[in-house]
């Protein structure tokens, strides 16, 4: 199998965070460079072309397509109201007329004398884009959007569902081994982003949705329970457009897996601060991982920055996490990286790293390691 290297998930105490906020179609940018924004501020808006209804006037009036233009009362470009008559036959001596009414409010866009169809376009659909996180406008992309810049905590999860969400961060467990249970979820958590340890059960997740909790960050969740939440089996990991009250970010993977200590400790350190999260995940070329962003104010920053993009490869001494059986979820330190291929129990020939896990040295395929990138 081709050798590949999974870049580590980022767990950064302090970094510069750039967020591009782009419209789906060209529109207007409503902020200027340098402006300070909060998550709810609208930064750009546009109108998506309205939905289209097609009415087959020729069929409804029982006339030939080429006669449709003559029968039309409303011509191309006219605005019509739902129920308004748009076409009528001449009838016999002015009697026995039949007519067609508009099924929706809109504008007559096209009258076709080939097919007898009339296209009615509904009003444009306004789309607004908000800032998502606090920060300042670093760059304006004319007619398309902005780049917002901030400094603070940046953490990536491995998988998420539900799109953008935000709220006050609340760590509700004592240790990274603890599960989020139903009992831990109370009305006081409504609108907040809660952090748990190793696992959340389906029942607890459902309760969180009932309580309108804004988001959950946790070590693991069961793959087979996703179907219950999503209403379909998740075949490919492309998420983010689900209509969920409570976004979920899983930091380690499927199953019961304690949250990485770096992640847990960092979230705990910022308990009570305001966080923006996004569960959107896309595992394809151009990978997108879910994220937790906690912008910090100047006096909260310590000034020991690390660029969010500076990824280093695995080296001796690196802290790594094993991401596949048999040592799945375990953390260890790289002892050395032998260059020759090694035969695994599966007889697959791979490049390995020797890792120290709980005082024991074991060989793991490098492709099954993930760098834990901390600052």
């Amino acid at each position, binding site marked *: *199998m*081709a050798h*590949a*290297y*999974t870049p580590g998930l980022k767990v950064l105490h302090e970094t510069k965070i750039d967020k591009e906020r782009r419209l789906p*179609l*060209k529109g207007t940018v409503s902020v200027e460079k340098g402006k300070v924004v909060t998550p709810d501020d609208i930064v750009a808006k546009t109108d998506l*072309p309205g*939905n*289209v*209804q*097609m009415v087959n006037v020729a069929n409804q009036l029982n006339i030939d*397509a080429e006669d449709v233009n003559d029968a039309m009362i409303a011509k191309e470009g006219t605005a019509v109201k739902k129920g308004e008559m748009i076409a009528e036959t001449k009838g016999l001596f002015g009697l026995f007329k039949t007519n067609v009414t508009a099924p929706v409010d809109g504008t007559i*866009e*096209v009258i*076709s004398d*080939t*097919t007898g*169809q009339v*296209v009615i*376009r509904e009003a444009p659909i306004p789309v607004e884009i908000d800032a998502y996180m606090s920060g300042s406008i670093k760059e304006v992309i004319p007619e*398309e959007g902005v780049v917002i810049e901030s400094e603070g905590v940046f953490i990536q999860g*491995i*998988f998420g569902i539900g799109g953008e969400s935000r709220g006050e961060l609340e760590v509700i467990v004592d240790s990274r081994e603890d599960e989020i249970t139903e009992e831990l979820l109370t009305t006081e958590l409504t609108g907040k982003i809660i952090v748990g340890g190793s696992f959340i059960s389906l029942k607890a997740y459902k309760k969180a949705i009932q309580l309108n909790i804004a988001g959950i960050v946790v070590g693991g969740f*069961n*793959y*087979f329970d996703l179907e219950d939440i999503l209403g379909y*089996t*998740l*075949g*490919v*990991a492309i998420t983010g457009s689900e209509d969920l009250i409570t976004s979920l970010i899983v930091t380690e*993977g*499927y*199953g019961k897996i304690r949250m990485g200590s770096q992640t847990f400790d960092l979230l705990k350190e910022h308990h009570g601060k305001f966080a923006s999260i996004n569960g959107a*995940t896309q*595992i*394809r*070329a*151009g990978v997108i991982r879910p994220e937790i962003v906690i912008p910090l104010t100047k006096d909260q920053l310590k000034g020991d920055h690390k660029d969010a*993009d500076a990824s280093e490869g695995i080296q001796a001494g690196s802290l790594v996490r094993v*991401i*596949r*059986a*048999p040592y*799945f979820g375990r953390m260890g330190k790289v002892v050395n990286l032998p260059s020759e291929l090694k035969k*695994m*129990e*599966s*007889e*697959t*020939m*791979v490049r390995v790293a020797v890792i120290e896990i709980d005082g024991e040295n074991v060989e*793991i*395929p490098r*492709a*099954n390691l*993930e760098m834990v990138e901390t600052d």
Partner: protein
Amino acid sequence: MELRSILATDCGSTTTKAILIEKIDGEYRLSVRGEAPTTVEAPFEDVTKGVLNAVMEVEELAGRKLLDGDNIITPRNDEEGVDIYISTSSAGGGLQMMVAGVVKGMTGESAERAALGAGSIVMDVLASNDGRKPHEKITRIRQLRPDMILLSGGIDGGTTKHVVELAEILAAANPKPRLGQNYKLPVIYAGNKNAADKIEETLGEITDLDLTENIRPVLEMENLKPSRDKIHDLFMEHVMQQAPGYKKLMSWTDAPIMPTPGAVGALIEMVAEKENISVVGVDIGGATTDIFSVFQKQFNRTVSANLGMSYSICNVLAESGLKNVLRWVPFDIDEKELTNRIGNKMIRPTTVPQSLEELVIEQAIAREALRLSFIQHKSFAVNLKGVQKERTISDAFEQTDSGESLVDMMELDLMVGSGGVLSHAPRREQSARMLIDSFLPEGITQLAVDSIFMMPQLGVMANIEKEELAEDARNAAIEVFEKDCLIRLGTCLAPVGNAKPGATVLMAELKLPNGDIQKHEIKYGDIIRIEVPYEPVKATLTPGKGMDIGAGKNELIETTIYGGVVGIIFDGRGRPMEIPSDPKQRISDLSKWSDAVDEYPDLEGQGLE
């Protein structure tokens, strides 16, 4: 000009692979290969960087200069550079199309066949009779944002109304291309020629419309080539222009860049034609599985967009069901634990199986991905639908319809597998078993794998149009395909029919290359492997009572078969094949079959008492 050296790259979504082919002692052979990560995405956003890195590796291994700074040296001057440089590409998600036809099973299907044959992924097939309301179609077109649309419909001279209606729907949706906000979406019209003016009127302004010959000029005939060629042209002119670095790459190549699957298909088509054989080729990747076939001289390709071994592994599980995956696993395993493991492979797609248990599970899933993809292929590779056949009295009693599958496993001569799980299985025996279990070949079938996935580069080589190069390049492609690309696994001999346990399904007398004569009796439910290299073996095959090995029930065959790195495999499990539902019996049978070919020699009988 005599071609002496050819450099070819394939820019995949994760890896760019380069091969160097040279003419040595009058033969074209693969001399070296190299690879590097593809650089289409940030932070590089220039595909040529990955190409140069891969070529640099080739340069080092070949020990001669191919690059001059950031340029590939062509044509060759003495010991430096190559005669030609060519490339394929599937980076950035490949070519994604939407097709439309008036009747889904007729022009819709022809349009789909043309798009797939050109190497595209077909995101959706719109048709007047697809059951969706116009506004639903419009919403769908807007959501999908394809790279290109192929619109067909109607036979020449037939009614124009329906195809114009489809054009009106497209116009109302005013679709935007996937890449680049500033250019118009390419639309190819290949329908009733009488509607061309109306189509131009409806779509001419808002799209980049191109007219070509009707894909279905008369009901009885498909005319796919003009559309396929047009797709390739537009792929180069529009889609590739939007992808980072491709303008530069296009200026380097001596032939148009082809979409990777389009090139593979072209090669398979050529091999089938040259050898006059039926071929099935499969490429199982992380996200998709492509199947190519040539039966009765007709080429077909299908892409199962969400059946793959990593990104879409969970979809294989969802579509096949856990039970069907587990029936290939020769030990007990907790079902919930297994689904979490498969889920974790999806979210960490680049991991490799370290333990034997993980490998067995992965190969079980591969069997299901291949089986499901082949079902899709069989239902798509069919005779033209809607064609009225002249019937005789005897036909009238047979309710065979048009639209029958062309795939006939008994007719199949060669099956070629590629893609990580097949090409890089730790044991070739495992690849052979995966191919046999999922495709269930019948009669006599040769098995092979493409060791390093060279088929795309060879396909584009075989399609070079420049007259002075075409013949040499074609010969080079065929020579390298036969000598270096394929690893011959061997031949599978599978009698068709069912018998009672223990009954003889085949008697075989083999005259081996060294003159030895071996006799084998194959019992129902058994697999036997004979280790023979890729050399001719004279075989006399006598099927058991009611069984068929290719010449009809109970009919003897005398023929020449070939061994390979695995050898000759007699598959006595009958066709159709049944796997016992009783777990104990199933595990026992699976273990017996594995042992017969030395598939997993180190696997203890886990779960067995």
